[in-house]
């Protein structure tokens, strides 16, 4: 039996012909990176290849690394294997990785969403034979509403808190979700304050995207000046003394997990907004269909359930264990990045 174009090894997804890894979780010589989240872009590889919009992100996160940036759709060959990056719509600079050899095409999605969020280049379906997909929210219970509606709710919530003289604290992952929230906050309502982790990442992205003005919270920031305004904070800040100093405040989280009534309560958060940077159930099914792929490999999320459903729909679908974490970080923010922030 011939070796598949991409294999799942103990270090990551591997192309043995090109001797290159996709989003490896162990240090390797050459890695193609889908996007800047910690579980997909790890430290310690000798060479990184990624989309040029992701370059400032991973340089900021990983420090001095050897990285080269590519354009959307720009092809590059490694040992006769043809590679190209295509928008994944997940966060700024997030790509799907297309791999072609002798007429056979594989696509690895990294993380993706089909909804256009206005700041990440919108997702494009890519025709392929084998589609390696995440399925973080691969259950029919997950259905996203248009982000316009979600942001209207968020801004209304902020206004209500303001009228009660309280500070609004909104939690979102410091890379991706925080900037998406920032982009659509209504600056007529009040000022936007940021936690250091979010401020730093946003500064990195300002040259690429136009964001509203933010004010970093420092030791000298008086809690009185926060009243009526909004604070963007990473989920790891929840329950910290940093937050508790801001009383009176109201907290909210924006995540796909807020679909579940219990999720908000278990985290002791006052309000939950359903807003995700991943596909919902129908989004996954539609994109799979659009690729025309006959083989589907599910990496992270509800992989077993999702692949069983795909099998019943006539796909040759299977599950592969990886070390990607899905949106879990938003609920259990103990990734290195968040802790250090």
């Amino acid at each position, binding site marked *: 039996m011939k070796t598949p174009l991409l294999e799942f090894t103990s270090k990551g997804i591997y192309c043995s012909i090109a001797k290159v890894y996709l989003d490896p979780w162990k240090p390797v010589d050459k890695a193609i990176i889908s996007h800047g989240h910690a579980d997909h872009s790890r430290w310690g590889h000798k060479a990184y290849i990624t989309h040029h919009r992701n370059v400032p992100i991973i340089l900021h996160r990983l420090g001095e690394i050897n990285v080269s940036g590519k354009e959307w759709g720009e092809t590059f060959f490694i040992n006769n294997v043809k590679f190209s990056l295509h928008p994944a719509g997940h966060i700024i600079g997030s790509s799907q990785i297309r791999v072609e050899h002798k007429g056979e095409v594989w696509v690895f999605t990294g993380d993706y969403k089909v909804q256009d969020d206005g700041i990440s280049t919108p997702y494009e379906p890519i025709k392929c034979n084998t589609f390696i997909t995440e399925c973080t929210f691969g*259950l*029919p*219970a*997950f*259905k996203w*509403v248009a982000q316009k509606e979600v942001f209207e709710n968020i801004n209304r919530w902020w206004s209500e808190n303001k009228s009660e003289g309280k500070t609004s604290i909104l939690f979102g992952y410091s890379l991706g979700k925080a900037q998406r929230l920032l982009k659509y906050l209504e600056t007529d309502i009040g000022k936007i304050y940021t936690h250091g982790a979010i401020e730093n990442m946003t500064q990195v992205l300002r040259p690429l995207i136009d964001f509203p003005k933010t004010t970093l919270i420092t030791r000298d920031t008086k809690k009185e000046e926060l009243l009526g305004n909004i604070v963007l904070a990473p989920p790891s800040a929840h329950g910290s003394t940093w937050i508790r100093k801001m009383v009176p405040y109201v907290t909210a989280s924006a995540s796909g*997990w807020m*679909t*579940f*009534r*219990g*999720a*908000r*309560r*278990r*985290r*002791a958060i*006052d*309000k939950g907004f359903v807003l995700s940077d991943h596909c919902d159930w129908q989004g996954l099914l539609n994109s799979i269909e659009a690729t025309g792929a006959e083989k589907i490999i599910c990496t992270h*999320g*509800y992989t077993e*359930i999702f692949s*069983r*459903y795909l099998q*019943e729909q006539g796909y040759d679908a299977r599950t592969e*264990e990886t070390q990607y974490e*899905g949106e*879990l970080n938003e*609920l*259990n923010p*103990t990734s290195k990045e968040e802790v250090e922030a």
Partner: protein
Amino acid sequence: MKNFAQLIKTLDSTNKTTTKVQALANYFSVATDKDKVWTIAILSHRRPPRPVNTTLLRKWASELANIPLWLFEESYHIVGDLAETIALVVPATKSSTEKTLTQFLEEMIALKKKTDEQKKAYLFENWKILDYYERFVFTKLITGGFRIGVSQKLMTRALAKSTAIDQDILAYKLMGNWNPDKITFQQLILEENESDYLSKPYPFYLAYPIENEIANLGDINLWSAEHKWDGIRSQTIIRNNELFIWSRGEELVTDKYPEFQALVDTIPNGTVIDAEILPFPNGQIGTFNDLQSRIGRKTISKNLLQKVPVILKAYDLLEWKGEDIRNRPFSYRRDLLEKVVKSAALNVLQLSKTMYCNSWEEVAKEREQSREVHSEGLMLKRKDSPYLVGRKKGDWWKWKVDPLTIDGVLTYAMRGHGRRSNLFTDYTFALWKENEKGEKELVTFAKAYSGLTDAEFRKIDNWIKKNTLERFGPVRSVTPHHVFEIAFEGIALSSRHKSGVATRFPRILRWRKDKSIHEANSISDLKQMII
């Protein structure tokens, strides 16, 4: 329905009691009288009988959602709530109905007698005209059991706020059997009734667990020690030849314990006793397990009365000859109580005896005996203490026995619910047992899903995914490898359990990374803990 769904949403999205009371009070001041009666009924668990069984609900919901039944079941397992799952998977719609809560409930009552085809048509029609949250509430009304943290107490507080009627009187008005379909708000709540005042209990005085060394409490002679019985804390009121039993949840439970009616004839009017309701099978104090069979029942059969009779273990006297004596010292109240119990001379009324100890060491020794007499530990009360209101520190302390512990092997795992639904966090543990051939095998003895840190759960989850032996739906069997110390409060023989033993409140105490599975305990070790 819009009003009611909004109310449930508000109640469900706050942990603050004051916000809940305010939301309810607001609702009670705008809702129609009929909707109010139904709301009170639903929040006090008096919903109409379930019109559609859950098997059909699941089948039809998966049909409308256009997904296979197994996928619906998997989603249900992860979401953890049937009505929520249904509301999520069926196609999203906008609200387009002005039907009231009362209309919906009347339809549901009528629905019970209809054919399956008619029921299905009714559900499809309504699932399609309600928005997500209304759909959830509508389905919840069918499946029953709103668990949204609204106690009877909270509801009476809100009603008191909007009607200006005393809370305890409202609690009395709401007790017993009344039919929301027949009664009006005027009859249920507003009409004045002299007997309402008779049942009024005093707030319970509750103790905190002891924090420091026991000897720091000072001179032993200032303190009184007694067992902390493991039943239902209650207040027994005898006034105007009537008996009222209140549970600590401030619910009237008089009807559930007919054996206490005898107190009315022997104890003078104007008496209130703080006591524990305890099971007393075969003339001995039983376990909480025994009492459980009495708690859940609406009607108590003769057979059950014989099998699990109950008694009152009296702790304290709060009212005597119609006078509130809570400010008198505990020792004074106890002396009176002893006389009352003695002169009543009833089998169902026993004294919770205080201990004669000359030193804290002796008290500590008594505590060690707690399990043998089926008590949870000791109560320490200052002899000069008044009977306070609510949970207070200083005068009373509880000193529970340490939990029992045993080392078990992780054998099965299941996904958690909600935020943990991506992780395997619900575990089954086993102990060693010798089979007929004399070989050692692992036998399941307890399930537990709390006690580890998130980081530990993630580690074990990762390990489980790599060490799965077999899959049974959502459950996986795993290679026996990890040992955990399991703590539990009580233990009793049980034929319903494979191990032959039932444990109470099992939880994970710690991960014994230092132990191999051969160092885990056996079923016979566990059985030796039974007294």
